[in-house]
């Protein structure tokens, strides 16, 4: 599989893109701005669409498919500001994903947080209640427990 296909696949499939600097998304897809297709966070995000153009149409620094280099995505609006990411491909694999821009609602550039970055829910977090053995949540009283998912789990005795 070519690197271009990987990059395009990620961009067009709405999979997560890490934007914390220095974190390779291929190895650690645990980071954090979703540039997705669903638009559940994006407000009028025209890029990151499902057309496939976001991967190929906005790349720069590379003329050939799968070639090493940097690929720049289009800017995407999120409630936390506009985000633009750059994917670095090396040896046919994604070596790095960095945030090029993060601006707040007023258009000012903002340093992306090193500690907590926005994520797109549907793309990043799996949530299959059938698979969990215990459910965490904000502290519940013993009364609240009766209506909780945890209560259902305990009663199911699974």
């Amino acid at each position, binding site marked *: 599989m070519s690197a271009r296909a990987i990059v395009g696949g990620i961009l067009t499939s709405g999979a997560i893109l890490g934007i914390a600097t220095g974190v390779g998304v291929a190895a650690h897809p645990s980071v954090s701005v979703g540039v997705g297709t669903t638009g559940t966070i994006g407000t009028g995000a025209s890029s990151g669409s499902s057309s496939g153009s976001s991967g190929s149409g906005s790349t720069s620094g590379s003329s050939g498919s799968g070639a090493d280099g940097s690929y720049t995505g289009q800017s995407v609006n999120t409630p936390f500001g506009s985000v633009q990411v750059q994917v670095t491909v090396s040896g046919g694999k994604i070596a790095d994903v960095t945030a090029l821009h993060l601006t707040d609602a007023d258009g000012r550039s903002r340093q992306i947080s090193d500690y907590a970055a926005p994520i797109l829910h549907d793309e990043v*977090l799996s949530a299959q209640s059938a698979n969990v053995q215990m459910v965490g949540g904000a*502290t519940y009283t013993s009364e609240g*427990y009766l209506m909780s998912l945890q209560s259902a789990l*305990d009663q199911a005795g699974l």
Partner: protein
Amino acid sequence: MRTAFETMGTVVSVATDADVSPRVLDAVRQVFAEYDETFSLYRPESPLSALARGELTLEAAPAVVRDEYARALEWRTRTHGWFTPHRPDGVIDLSGSIKAVATDAARGLLEQAGVCGLLGAGGDIMAFGEGVHPVGIVDPRDRARLLADLGLPAGRAIATSGSAERGDHIWSRLGTTDVLQASVIADDIVTADVLATALVAAGSSALDDLLAAFDVDALIVTREGLLATRHWPVREPAVPA
């Protein structure tokens, strides 16, 4: 094996890979009961209640009370005051940390019994023994749904605090926080619990200050969306070939 019992104003759930003897389960219950008897402000006879009424001084209080109060004060410092062991009226209230302390002690008993699994108390969970155990986090915007699920490795804990439910140990500026819920994964449940509480109280503008000082993972629900630390354990996305 799975069981649940009521204690400390909430419910403790135990899920293990093998049966736990009634003797061990009794000891687990006893641990929670003893912390409750000492620290509950709902029990008029507890030392904490006596402290609150001014009938007992810290000097005369049981050593465990002084120790836990000192620990909580350290946490207040480490969280820049966002976690506090005092009620707004000044009464010492250790309910924000003592449930986690009790959970940690009970976890030790289960580990000694040689079983693996999960111990949950009021929505905070520890994994113990060996292996990775699947847990979920409730979506604060729809409590019938999960916000996320993840594998919690043995030796790790996840705690969740919210501004929407109960919140009786989150006093600070609750009316103004923009954090609906904060979940923290740490190596021990007290750290996770205290930081989750502090993150909710502090609001999103203070997240970096809090998270920079601790080696933890956090998933935060704000009014605007979700925030996660870079190593929050998400699943590998399926990348098309």
